């Protein structure tokens, strides 16, 4: 079975923050750096350093273009983390003008009882909220955010975001008041017959304009 593609660029920070958009609004409250001392694999990880001074957090994010995602598809996000405070991962649907449509998911990564590298993961479904549709969607933004009101640190490494095994759905064709055949993506189906297609797939269904029975 083929290994699913990790859609994230530079997921292990081996190229420092290449591919990531870093935000450090106030270095006196928090910052992010590349750490070569503590990592899960490779030789580097990304490190959050929180000073404990009240203020906003820091972090980094990456966008995944709609062209790489399937409407209704299910995706798995996984992250290795080492922390003494609760890290947060936010997922946002952004529109074609980069405005936030809505939050798609969130993952909180609490500190473990025993220090060490942990794995966090969540399933993210590409389903747009009511009142919106797929045509509005532009990118999925994944934000790893660190903020705390006490001095604290966290490392993250080996992030993954990949498509889960495709879900199959059923299209049932029927005709009334007579039974005719249709073609679904070139396959002939009779009235009442069902075909399986991959969720999110675009299919073409054709029937005859006139039939004699």
């Amino acid at each position: 079975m083929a290994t699913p593609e990790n859609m994230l660029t530079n997921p292990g920070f081996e190229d420092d923050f290449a591919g990531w958009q870093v935000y450090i609004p106030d270095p006196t409250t928090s910052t992010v750096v590349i750490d070569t001392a503590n990592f899960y694999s490779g030789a580097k990880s990304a490190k959050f350093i929180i000073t404990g001074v009240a203020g906003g957090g820091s972090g980094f994010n990456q966008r995944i273009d709609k062209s790489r995602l399937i409407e209704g598809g299910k995706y798995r996000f996984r992250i290795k983390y080492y922390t003494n405070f609760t890290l947060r991962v936010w997922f946002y649907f952004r529109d074609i003008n980069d405005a936030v449509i809505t939050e798609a998911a969130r993952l909180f990564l609490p500190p473990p009882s025993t220090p060490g590298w942990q794995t966090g993961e969540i399933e993210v479904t590409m389903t747009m909220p009511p009142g919106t549709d797929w045509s509005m969607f532009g990118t999925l933004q994944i934000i790893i955010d660190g903020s705390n009101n006490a001095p604290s640190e966290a490392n993250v490494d080996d992030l993954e975001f990949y498509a889960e095994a495709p879900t199959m759905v059923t299209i049932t064709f029927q005709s009334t008041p007579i039974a005719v055949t249709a073609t679904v993506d070139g396959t002939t189906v009779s009235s009442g017959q069902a075909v399986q297609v991959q969720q999110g797939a675009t299919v073409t269904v054709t029937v005859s304009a006139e039939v004699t029975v």
Partner: protein
Amino acid sequence: MAKYRFDRWEDGSTSTTRTLTVTGDLTITAYYVPVTHQVSYNSTPIVVPATIDGQTVQPGQAITVEDGQQITITVPESVEV
């Protein structure tokens, strides 16, 4: 044998080819309607009603029948005018 023509899909679209993105199980339905013809009746040189399948039809009147439908038309053998 009777002819039917495609009328519409359950979503109201009327093209025989339909493209859709499938995000969950669904049923699609094609609706057909019978192809119909107009049968016009006339008599000459006098006005004589006929019966078509038991229904009285005046000269110049038309009825609608489905394609392939067998109909019986009856006129009187003789009339007095």
